[in-house]
């Protein structure tokens, strides 16, 4: 399949008022970005709000310089920051509340039918950092270099963390019975 204009060109076109460019960019990223946000915040409505917020932010913010990195990396950096902000706000709110009663196990985890549920279950059992890294790598399709820039660590560190996360994920998947 041929890919038309680059993401960076589409962004410029959107800013100059071309809404067809927006349609194209949205179609390119809606599933990947929403999938990432949905797994990070675990709430569909909130993920939809965040998707809207992230896309509007990247369209408004003119500080992005295409020569310094790909649009995808910037987009997922903004998405990650929004998720972290949300987590922080949530943590403050949760701290003020009384401790919740133990929740019933998620139906997704109980029904181990199908591979996709198994993958989701295996991902859920990873640590937050590991899950985050795997999602950015696989769903966001970012490079080691881009991941290193986002996390502010050397590329070698990202590589070893990603190896560990991948191995942990596959181990969990095998334990569930779909590896």
């Amino acid at each position, binding site marked *: 399949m041929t890919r038309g204009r680059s993401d960076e060109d589409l962004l410029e076109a959107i800013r100059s008022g071309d809404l067809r460019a927006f349609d194209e960019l949205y179609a390119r990223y809606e*599933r990947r970005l929403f999938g990432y946000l949905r797994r990070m915040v675990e709430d569909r409505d909130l993920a939809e709000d965040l998707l809207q917020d992230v896309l509007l932010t990247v369209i408004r913010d003119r500080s992005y310089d295409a020569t310094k990195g790909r649009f995808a990396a910037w987009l997922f950096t903004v998405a990650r920051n929004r998720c972290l902000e949300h987590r922080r706000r949530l943590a403050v709110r949760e701290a003020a509340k009384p401790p919740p009663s133990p929740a019933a196990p998620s139906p997704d985890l109980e029904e181990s039918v199908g591979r996709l549920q198994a993958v989701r279950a295996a991902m859920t059992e990873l640590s937050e950092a590991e899950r985050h890294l795997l999602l950015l790598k*696989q769903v966001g399709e970012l490079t080691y270099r881009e991941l290193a820039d986002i996390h502010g660590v050397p590329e070698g560190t990202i590589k070893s963390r990603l*190896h560990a996360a991948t191995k942990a994920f596959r181990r969990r998947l095998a334990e569930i019975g779909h590896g």
Partner: protein
Amino acid sequence: MHCHDCEPLLIDHACAQTDDPIHTEVARHLAGCSVCALEYCRLRADLAGIVEAHAEAPHARVYTRLRRQVAAEVRPRWWTRSWHLLLRPIPAYGAVLVGLLPLALWVASSLTRDSGPPPTTDPLGMPPAASLSHYDAISLPPAHRDVL
């Protein structure tokens, strides 16, 4: 390359993060080693599962709402819209131009034929000679009348 050298490189290879010479070496090893090839296929399937399980479309209302907001944000004026319309690579523009070209040539040639040569001014002040058009010296005059 041996299996114990190849195994730690499989994740990088699956993520397309190996350098060219290493990539070639791993690919060559995978082509000749069924054990590593099987392990690599399983790894790829597991990683593809992450994408498959997490790529999820938002509700259609998100798109509608967002598009409206973006439209309000970038505020495309009529001249901006017209400019983008013109920039679209539509082959029909070319076809219309090619179709109009003979018409333009015909109009131009008929205009120059009707106007004739410009009147010249005589240095003695004589009026310019009247130009004669549509005169055919060979054909017969339309009627023969006796002069006297």
